[in-house]
């Protein structure tokens, strides 16, 4: 499975990722993106890819295995 890298210093709390893929992403107490599940199941990955695309600031980086 690919892995997710989060460039959290660029997160502006738009929540676009959470709205797209709540199974994968959430906002922490400071409103910054965190990963909900360190090992997302296969069926969530299309949503993760979409979330990476809708993030306005390219915070979510999907690294191929």
């Amino acid at each position: 499975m690919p892995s997710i890298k989060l460039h959290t210093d660029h997160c502006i709390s738009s929540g676009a990722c959470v709205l797209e893929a709540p199974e994968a992403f959430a906002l922490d107490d400071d409103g910054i993106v965190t990963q909900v599940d360190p090992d997302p199941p296969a069926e969530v990955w299309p949503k993760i890819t979409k979330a990476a695309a809708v993030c306005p600031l390219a915070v979510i980086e999907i690294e191929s295995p």
Partner: protein
Amino acid sequence: MSARRVVVVGASAAGTTVAESIARLDREREVVIVGDGPDLAHDRPPLSKQVLAGDWEPDQAALLPPARRAALTARLVLGSAATGLDCDRRLVHLDDGDSLAYDDLVIATGVRPRRLDPATPPGLHVLRDLADSLRLRAELGPGRRLVVVGGGFIGLEVAATARRLGTSVVVLEPTHAPLAPRLGATAAARLVERHRREGVDMRTGIGVVAVETGTDGRVARVLTTDGAEIGCSTVLVSIGSEPTVGWLVGSGLDLTDGVVCDEFCRAAPGVWAAGDVARWHHRSLGRLVRVEHRLNATEQGLAVATNIVGPARPFTPTPFFWTDQYDVRVQLAGELSPDAVEEIEPLDGADSFLHTFRIDGVLTAALAWNAARALLPLRRELAATLSPV
């Protein structure tokens, strides 16, 4: 038969989003990005904050991180301004005399800052691109005085950053309640109060009569409508922006306050617009809308790319923007209306609030003050009405 070509005019957030999205949706399509700068633009929100403060070097404010930048398959035509559009022949004319043929054209040329007058003496600034931010950064710090003309988002973000750097800051804002139409009266007043507590000299109901220069040609003072003379060497003019549509005059497109588009963000057959420059028919809001906020550039860029590849869907985003000033992050989703009833809920922890705005009990807008996570369910509620799937 050659590949269908999408020409994107504008190398900033909306333009690069279109390019990346087309590549993801249809690898066979050729994409060309035309930009009038030396490279893709930098992401603009950090230019009034992290970059201006010196916390980030410019490359940290790149629109695309290195891996994504390297993966961009679009052809870049840089240092090139578009000078005209022939919709019948599907040609974009460039300033070097060349023309680019397209199957689809995306207009993503954004906006330009309004100025008080055409003169640009040293010390007089606007803030739109990286060079503006670095020039302004060099004039901030202890012992310096900055006068901000216009207390909107850019002006107040710069005021906060400048203050953090020890600059003496005066803000001149003609209205009596800066940002009230954008944040509602309560949150706007709380923000203004925060600026005053941080030592910003916030002068509301005051406008600029003139910016005067000294014998050295540099900015020397600002004359105000209440008769004050404010000595300063640095002035930021942040009085709003105009859509960059001059190059489209004569194209036959409706250029009233931006490039006017239908609900699919289409201005004419094969001509689309995205980002700050686009004025499109928002089907849920029932009127033409032009949004100068960062998230819309990405959302609309995605929508235009999807519509080009097809099938086209109406673009009905839930409006959203944010502003960061001092340690406060304010976000607003939805649309404020004078008819709405505001309710304010303080949340756990100091300085955290959720404001809701309802008309006849129906949620029409929600504002988070250091409450990003709590805002999410309200944004879903707004999206259910404004952005039906």
